[in-house]
């Protein structure tokens, strides 16, 4: 027994010495982790991994991406807050963080628990139909939805998801469709391909190949303007000017954040590194090719990002509540009307 105790004591001393040594080194002195609160392979995951590689170069420390998906991102987001607030654990949030409280998925998680490092990208949302669909253009689809409410079928990723929110926007334009929930974005596309549903609202980067191969057609871009890659496809506000009010925010904003408890100096180091990483040529070319919105150019300063996130949260929370899809009122959390 004595030998065991002595061995343990020695081990403990060694480890604590190691820990002290680590604390005195300048930030960053060991590897960082970026948590992706969604499963591997999704658009958030892909963007994060690409960005992590660039960040690694700028910070000089390895940056690992950890997938902790589930519950609309609550698990991964909570994990970031549970980790020590020393700046070594970051999280890439998407749209869901704004609606967790009203959707009763979390008691308190919101954008306010985090300090944004930088806004990265947003994937434009487009409405796509299958190759052999009877709808030739957007007007026909909208007219059909108005003529046969509740009969035109759309696939989406579940309550509170970006597809659901897009459907609420369409509802506000007088179009009622029949929604069916699927587990992920790719399942929604599959449903369109095999004819189970009539159309879906997808992230542009996920449908590029289908559009090129001709197996799918894009009817419209759900954003303020047309995309450079598809100059002939109209933007939704062109046919429905009322939509412009809803579509002023990007709907899949990927924002790199750290816990709000991390100190200013560390945050500034991260921000500077992120700015340099985002200036990378290859990265920018890649984004232009896939028509991703460069949020870091739209919202360059931290105040811009915070303001944008607050505006986004307010718009989407009230939309969900007014449609009866949210369990709690945004007023309970002091979220002002947009």
């Amino acid at each position, binding site marked *: 027994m004595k030998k065991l105790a002595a061995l343990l004591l020695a081990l403990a001393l060694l480890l604590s010495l190691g820990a002290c040594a680590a604390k005195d080194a300048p930030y960053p002195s060991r590897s960082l982790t970026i948590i992706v609160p969604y*499963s*591997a*392979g*999704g658009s958030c*995951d*892909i963007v994060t*991994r*690409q960005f*992590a*590689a660039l960040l690694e170069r700028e910070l000089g420390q390895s940056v*690992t*991406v*950890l*997938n*902790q998906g*589930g*519950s*609309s991102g*609550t*698990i991964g987001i*909570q*994990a970031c807050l549970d980790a020590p607030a020393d700046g070594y654990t970051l999280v890439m949030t998407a749209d869901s963080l704004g609606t967790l409280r009203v*959707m*009763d*998925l*979390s*008691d308190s998680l919101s954008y306010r628990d985090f300090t944004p490092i930088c806004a990265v990208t947003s994937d434009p949302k487009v409405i796509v139909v299958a190759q052999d669909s009877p709808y030739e253009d957007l007007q026909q689809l909208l007219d059909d939805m108005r003529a046969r409410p*509740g*009969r*035109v*079928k759309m696939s989406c990723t*579940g*309550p*509170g998801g970006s597809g659901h929110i897009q459907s609420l926007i369409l509802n506000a334009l007088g179009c009622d469709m*029949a*929604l*069916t*929930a*699927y*587990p992920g974005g*790719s*399942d929604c*596309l*599959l449903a369109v*391909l*095999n004819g*189970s*549903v009539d159309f879906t609202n997808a992230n542009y980067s*996920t449908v*590029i*190949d*289908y559009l*090129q*191969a001709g*197996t799918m057609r894009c009817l419209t871009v759900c954003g303020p303007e047309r995309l450079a890659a598809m100059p002939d496809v109209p933007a939704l506000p062109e046919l429905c000017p009322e939509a412009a009010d809803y579509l002023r925010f990007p709907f899949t904003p990927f924002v790199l954040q750290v816990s709000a408890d991390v100190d200013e100096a560390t945050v500034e180091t991260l921000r500077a590194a992120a700015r340099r990483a985002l200036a990378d040529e290859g990265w920018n070319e890649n984004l232009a090719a896939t028509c991703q919105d460069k949020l870091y150019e739209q919202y360059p300063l931290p105040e811009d990002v915070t303001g944008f996130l607050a505006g986004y949260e307010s718009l989407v929370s009230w939309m969900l509540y007014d449609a009866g*899809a949210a369990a709690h009122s945004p007023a309970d959390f002091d979220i002002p009307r947009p």
Partner: protein
Amino acid sequence: MLSFSSVFGCLLRPDIVLFVLLGALAGTLVGALPGLSVTMATALLVSITYSWETDRALAMIMGVYVVGVFSGAISAILINIPGAPSSVVTTLDGYPLARRGEGYRALQYAALYSFVGTVVGVLALWAFAGPVSALALRFRPMDYFLLSLFALSTVGSLTAKRFEKGLTAACLGLLLSLVGTDPVVGTPRLTFGIRALQGGVNTVCALVGLFGFAEVLSVLSGDELSQKPPRVSRRGASAGELLRHLLPSLYYSAIGVLVGALPGAGGPVAAFLAYGRARARTKKPSVPFGEGAVEGIVASESANNAVIGGALIPMLTLAIPGDATTAVLLSVFTIHGLRPGPTFLATNADKFALLIGAALLAAVFLLLIGLFLCPHLSALVALPRRLMMPVVTVLCVVGAYACSSRLFDVAVMFLFGLLGWALRRHDYPTAPVILGLVLGGMMDRSFRQAVSLAMSEEHFLPALLGRPLTLLLLGLTLLSLLLAFLRRDRALTSGR
């Protein structure tokens, strides 16, 4: 279609061969350790191989994937703890063989037929990617539901003694799979207010607990602790004995390919279905099923390795992953600038050839590792249980934690262990619980999707069931349920 030279040409590159080998060795380790799944390993590799040349990254990942699925059988056979959900069925006949000291023989079968399964799957990918993908595309939610029901109906064949016990265990699994947030409406179900449960029960934690920790408890509470471990026979099976099952294994591999090609289904479902078919077809197994019939291992291992080729089909042709590991593989492709989808096979023929070549090479390594490493591994069974059990427990803890880095999962794992132990003591089989856990979410979702889609049509029932594929599956499922019910009655009257 790709030519032979393009596929085998890439094998002439020594760096590719090296990376496949490295992946194969890593895969052996990862797959065999309970709690570490191939999916997790692939996810780790994504970060590690980010800066590598694409070909090398793909080679290594295929090595890990192919051999990892097989090596789940190693721990399944030797210590009754499947390395992954796909290997659950292998425990049913593999472990009894190991207990009798015939672990080496069991591993030989597992290795050979994993090889066969992989090759069949990859050949299907090579030659039939288009037609299989088109077939898989035709499956709609109702078809998925019926397929799951069909898989569950095979559960009855898993229990030698009582039909009801197997189904009850499956029901438990189904109920547990529903814990979490309802994906359609968003309300939490069965979470009892615990936020940590909102993500649902992690299958790997349940697996590790139900099989791993439960095994530890069984051994501790039984007589085996003080018993001498069995004498391990070094006599393996002869080539003739091994190859006798080649033809049936082609059938099981076909099942694996098809199930793999259906997004969302995956390894465990294929293994269960194949096992069910094996039990139905084999009139005179060498040993009764459930007590060491090698036919069971043949079925389960062929099917779960064939899933690899099958799952790659929708991933490459539609950018829709066939199972969890291919989902991670998809992100590897994207990071390296490749975009799977309808144009992939045409525009990236060289990468496609590399994938196939690497998979075949990995299959060869699988065979070599399996046949040559296994005699040494099977000696593990001879270690005194007193030393093994604590180590196994710690492995279970690490495995449970490794899923999502939460200690909560470790607690869940222990609870599942207690559940598994209680089930075993009362002669309830634990394998159906895993099947229920894996299928429950898909069944629930598919059923409601099917209903939701049919509700917006004018005529509900024809919309729900009116397609030829659906009717076929409905017929098959009802037939299978009827047969299982009748067979159970026959077993009763025969006085067993």
